[in-house]
């Protein structure tokens, strides 16, 4: 969507207002409440954007530790193979390390411990293109080491959404999805 330069005295039409008022670099697409073991969103990836930013606000206390997992989704079906990832983590005491998935059947996004909110910020690159999809993300929670991750889903497929999953119990919170505007 191109930027329009208005000139002095030019009439601001309703159409131009609706088109260009929300013409920021990061454009809100949708948000939804997370409340289940499986929380898929469809039709959030379109040809309007190549790259996306999602925020996950995982709020509820839960007993024990559960994994927050992500799978890409096309036409209502999750992709269940070829998630390669590398994660650097650090603890509050300053120790750290790394682990990887080589590959995994899902993207291991975070651990959710009991009692504290978990925040995740993630960039997803080219999910709608018929090409590999790349990810970078971070997570932080008071009861969990902070991670910095990067991943690639090594399957050349066009996806229209993704699924956020828990391996134990339900996720409670909100997922926000934004697109990076193209010229």
């Amino acid at each position, binding site marked *: 969507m191109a930027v329009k330069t208005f000139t002095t005295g030019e009439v601001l039409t309703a159409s131009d207002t609706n088109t260009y008022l929300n013409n920021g670099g990061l454009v809100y697409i*949708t948000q939804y409440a997370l*409340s*289940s073991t499986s929380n*898929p969103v*469809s039709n959030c990836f379109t040809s309007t954007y190549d790259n996306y930013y999602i925020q996950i606000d995982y709020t509820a206390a839960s007993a024990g530790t559960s*994994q927050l997992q992500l799978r890409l989704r096309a036409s209502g079906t999750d992709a269940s193979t070829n998630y390669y990832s590398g994660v650097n983590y650090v603890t509050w005491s300053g*120790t750290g390390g790394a682990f990887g998935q080589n590959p995994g059947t899902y993207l291991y996004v975070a*651990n959710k411990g009991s009692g504290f909110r978990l925040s995740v910020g993630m960039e997803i690159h080219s999910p709608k293109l018929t090409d590999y999809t790349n990810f970078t993300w971070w997570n932080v929670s008071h009861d969990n080491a902070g991670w910095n991750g990067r991943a690639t889903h090594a399957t050349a497929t066009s996806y229209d959404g993704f699924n956020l*999953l828990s*391996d134990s119990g339900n996720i409670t919170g909100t997922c926000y999805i934004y697109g990076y505007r193209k010229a």
Partner: protein
Amino acid sequence: MSEPIMGTFHDAETGETVTRELTAEEIAALPISEPTRVYE
């Protein structure tokens, strides 16, 4: 009886969100988790 496994399905195009029990097929497709990474 164990708790049913639920899914929350959101469509960004319509804005609709539906929460329902997962089907047997959907449950079978859920991931088998890797070992959880826990750090001191």
